[in-house]
């Protein structure tokens, strides 16, 4: 069945269409990447196995990765997959039906989005708390010593967007000090705010103490008293449609165990 010449225009159109599709697929925005592939994780009883998908606030990245590795060591045959991001974005994708087993959020407000939608199993429990800190360039060349110093004109400060817990906490701290701060950018999550300082694009950012510690020598932390008024509770919960409930429960248990708390406080988190 060779192509007849009379069909050429149609074929040509199909070719152009295919090319357009290729171009389109190449240019689509990289939006979320939060839909982790999910296999059926069986294991009804006994030994834990299969994949556990944990959606966690960006600030939990380092400590949860450590706990995940430990969990996999303790329970061979399991695999913990994380999706870290702004708590609000994670909450939105969970209520939108993303297949997750556990949700750990950086604020009760974002957790409420999930509980209000009725997709959480049981009541969320606070497992750690986090305090804000100012991240400055290494060596603190601008001599930032207080939250008020950030309001100086000419200093490039980034905050988290108020939709994200670290942003609302920063606003709370600023209100507590009756300060007005105009940042150069409201970042979409705490790690992007921190990275603007790591990359030296901004002079300072208001982030969590844990993020400053995780960044090592790339930023310098400055404590400020107003942060006491803006301490975030981190709730964790099992999700109702958890594909792998047994393993998910075990993971939450590990997070709340003495062992888990040691890892978390080691990263700079406060005990609940």
């Amino acid at each position, binding site marked *: 069945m060779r192509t007849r010449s*009379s*069909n050429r*225009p*149609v*074929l040509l*159109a*199909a070719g*152009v*269409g295919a*090319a*357009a*599709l290729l*171009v*389109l697929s*190449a*240019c689509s*925005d*990289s*939006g979320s990447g939060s839909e982790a592939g999910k296999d059926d994780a069986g294991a009804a009883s006994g030994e834990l196995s299969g994949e556990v998908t944990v959606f966690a606030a960006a600030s939990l990245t380092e400590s949860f990765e450590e706990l995940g590795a430990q969990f996999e060591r303790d329970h061979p045959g399991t695999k913990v997959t994380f999706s870290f991001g*702004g708590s*609000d*974005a994670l*909450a*939105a994708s969970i209520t939108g039906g993303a297949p997750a087993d556990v949700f750990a959020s950086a604020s009760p407000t974002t957790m409420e989005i999930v509980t209000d939608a009725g997709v959480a199993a049981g009541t969320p429990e606070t497992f750690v708390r986090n305090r804000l800190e100012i991240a400055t360039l290494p060596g603190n060349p601008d001599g930032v010593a207080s939250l008020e110093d950030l309001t100086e004109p000419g200093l*490039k400060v*980034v905050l988290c*967007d108020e*939709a*994200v817990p670290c942003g609302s906490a920063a606003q709370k701290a600023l209100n507590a000090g009756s300060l007005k701060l105009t*940042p*150069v*950018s*409201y*970042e*979409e999550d705490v790690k*992007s705010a921190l990275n*603007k300082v790591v*990359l*030296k*694009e*901004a002079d300072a950012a208001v982030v969590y103490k844990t993020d400053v510690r995780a960044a090592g020598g790339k930023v310098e932390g400055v404590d400020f008293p107003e942060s006491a008024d803006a301490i975030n509770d981190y709730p964790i919960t099992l999700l109702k449609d958890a594909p792998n409930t047994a393993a998910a429960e075990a993971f939450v248990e590990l997070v709340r165990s003495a062992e888990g708390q040691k890892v978390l406080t080691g990263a700079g988190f406060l005990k609940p």
Partner: protein
Amino acid sequence: MTPPSTAGAGTGGSDGGGGGPRDVLTGGPAPSRRPKSKPGKRTRVRTAAPLPLLVPALLGLAFLVLPLLALLLRAPWSSMPELLTSAEVWQALRLSLVCATAATALSLVIGVPLAWLLARVEFPGRGLVRALVTLPLVLPPVVGGVALLMALGRNGVVGRWLDDWFGVTLPFTTAGVVVAEAFVAMPFLVIAVEGTLRAADPRYEEAATTLGASRFTAFRRVTLPLVAPGIAAGAVLAWARALGEFGATITFAGNFPGRTQTMPLSVYLALQSDPEAAIALSLVLLAVSVAVLAGLRDRWMTSA
């Protein structure tokens, strides 16, 4: 007899605004406004489209249009007026339009000469250069944003000198948004224009030069008018891409209302706290881009 259905399937596909350059040239909504087919024009489809092509074609159309219809169906129409009258929305929309247009202008100024170079001048490594030009198409936009920070950021390879010598820093500024959008959108323009240039007969230019025109004059007076439709199509593609740009913008320029918060950024942030507002914002962006593309099509594209 047969033409109505097949023609409908053939022209409706580009409503979404994307598509290759050729789609923009010929496709688009509102065929009724067009005068009856010109006498000289060949009939597009002589026989009915074969089923193995027609079925996937219709599937493809449905695939592209269905999500947009769903957006319309689920839109919070009752609260729409309230959502759309907020000053923040208009601020973001205006910034989006201004930045996308500026990015397109920038792409035209440096992209058209680049396309000409690729199409008309033989030089070693031309294939490599062409591949480099298309790289931003493949690169995830967020990575593009980071790359821009490395190059043009305050501490970047070039940006450091910009800062030291001129006191210019691009991140967190509206100019930064334009740069990020142009970075992502320009390859579309370059590819479209280069394709048109290759299809255009170089003998017209050669004739012009033998008649005494300099090569630049020949480019300006002969080549440019010759490839104008291709440039217009490329510009529309680049504009549309710039308007929807998110990843490179938020990474390179940050997010500040009125300065760097374009519509896609405000849609993304609204999606986290208020999905209904996000849908409303998306519809505004959709309506504006459809209106502009349709308007341009009537004005420009039919001349092709």
